[in-house]
């Protein structure tokens, strides 16, 4: 038992959680017929339930997962799984129908109009009753938390934002607050707002499908499941004192120290590889990093337009394409920095503490 728990503690590290959820997402999308079969659906929920039932016997697991404000995350996890299966099961069935030239299942019913009374009003009424029952049961079963009175001089360790922002707080491991707390959230909002205007694909409007818009759906799922939901789970359940990583069965010990070996790009280049020491001039010192960033945002879009995104570029036209490419690169900036950190202990690509400007 203990050895299994140790194994799970190891397996839930940020690296494995990130790659794991990415791999699961890819496997899920590759063959939707199979991944939304009853076997997989029931198997996943059974596995989750069995894991919870077993893990809840562990004191450390209980002490995190049953914190009142963490309970919603379990609910989020279950609901996201449920609706992902539901939505993509319909998409898979529709894709088969579309392949046969039948059109999506929704098409059979679009021209049928039903009276709102009773067809819609009753559905709404049932939802209302169900939701009321669930919410009241939740309110009776779980007391709202109240900790000791606010004390500005006694900061808890770890200090965490409300759970729905923990994906952002997790980004602070990789980027400074002006990026993780301002720029990237701003970009998420900008990206969502731009989405209807940069998606040129007229198909898949008003029905579930995957095959007719694989790129848009893959991007959204990567952002939503891998970079948002899984980071929230990581930030809430697996980050303890000093924002160190703790496995789900590990006790949160303040003393746990993780050696900080992170090195800036400029040190790598000037000190480790060239062995000449850091140059005096900031621009020279950080030149490689700055050029890298300029290349990333300036040169990659045109390069991609002639290679990987060739078809997209033709469909979208100049302005749409550039907006999309910029947003895409912004989104990828997070996993790229994660990878650099995990593989080279890279701290900052551009490090200019003189002007509080670090990337």
């Amino acid at each position, binding site marked *: 038992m203990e050895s299994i728990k140790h194994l799970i503690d190891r397996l839930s590290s940020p690296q494995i959680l990130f790659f794991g959820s990415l791999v699961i997402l890819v496997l899920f999308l590759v063959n939707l017929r199979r991944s939304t079969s009853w076997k997989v659906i029931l198997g996943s929920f059974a596995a989750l339930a069995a894991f919870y039932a077993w893990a809840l016997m562990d004191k450390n697991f209980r002490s995190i997962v049953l914190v009142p404000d963490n309970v919603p995350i379990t609910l989020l996890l279950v609901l996201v799984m449920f609706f992902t299966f539901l939505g993509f099961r319909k998409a898979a069935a529709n894709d088969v129908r579309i392949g046969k030239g039948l059109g999506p299942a929704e098409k059979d019913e679009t021209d049928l109009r039903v009276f709102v009374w009773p067809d819609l009003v009753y559905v709404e009424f049932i939802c209302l009753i169900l939701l009321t029952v669930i919410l009241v049961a939740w309110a009776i079963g779980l007391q709202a938390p109240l900790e000791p009175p606010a004390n500005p001089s006694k900061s808890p360790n770890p200090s*965490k934002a409300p759970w729905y922002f923990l994906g952002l707080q997790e980004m602070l491991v990789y980027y400074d607050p002006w990026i993780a707390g301002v720029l990237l959230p701003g970009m998420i909002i900008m990206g969502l707002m731009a989405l209807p205007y940069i998606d040129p694909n007229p198909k898949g409007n008003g029905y579930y*499908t995957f095959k007719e818009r694989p790129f848009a759906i893959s991007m959204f799922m990567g952002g939503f499941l891998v970079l948002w939901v899984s980071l929230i789970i990581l930030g809430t359940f697996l980050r303890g004192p000093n924002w160190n990583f703790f496995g789900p069965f590990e006790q949160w010990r303040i003393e746990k120290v993780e050696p900080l070996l992170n090195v800036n790009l400029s040190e790598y280049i000037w000190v480790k590889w060239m062995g000449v020491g850091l140059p005096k001039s900031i621009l020279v010192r950080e030149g490689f990093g700055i050029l890298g960033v300029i290349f990333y945002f300036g040169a990659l879009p045109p390069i991609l337009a002639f290679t990987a995104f060739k078809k997209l570029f033709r469909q979208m036209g100049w302005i749409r394409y550039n907006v999309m490419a910029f947003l895409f690169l912004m989104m990828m900036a997070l996993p790229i920095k994660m990878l650099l950190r995990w593989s080279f202990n890279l701290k900052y690509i551009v490090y200019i503490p003189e002007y509080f400007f670090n990337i």
Partner: protein
Amino acid sequence: MAVPTKPKSSPKDFIFKSQIWKSIFRHGKPNTHRNRTLVMLSNVFLHLHPIKVRKSGVALSYTWCMGGATFFLFLVEVITGILLMFYYRPTPQYAYTDIMQLREDVSFGVMRELHRWGAHAMVIAVWLHMYRVFLTGSYKPPREFNWNVGVILLVLTLLLSFTGYLLPWDQLAIWAVTVGSNMARAHPVIGHEGPGSPLVTFVVTILIAVHFWRVRKDGGISGPL
């Protein structure tokens, strides 16, 4: 010659044909097409809906009812929030003790629980609503604008939830909000502003009205063309 007798009036008629009833409901039972139309037209709450809708749009498996759930939870938040406001003073001096009293002195008190878990649930519901709108491609023309109204609603929902987090004025509250606002490099302006910032709530209400209006004006719940 038989005197024409007055038709016997049943207890049912006594109610449904009374002047009082007829003054409220201006149509018969909604079991004919005519009355089903009238019921939607004459009721201010129902007239948010059209008379008829696409069959595919009614299916729970299509909309997941998540927009509706978000709206329901918003109403729960407003109602429980107003009730809590009577027992809670949003100043550092009283906030904590007021919450303490709510917790200790009220038997079977679930108002605070309803409010707190409702807020968490609303955040989840609004994400899932966006997820479904994305998967059905319902942001595509002609619904681009309504998607954007939705994005603003999403941001404001998170903001409301976040400002509310501070109100109990306990360790959980101030540190969570401190971390959050440090992240945004903003100062906790929301500090002592009062429950659920009434202004934001007001804006959300207006935007929800715009949102619903546009759902109808954009041709109802989306469906294949």
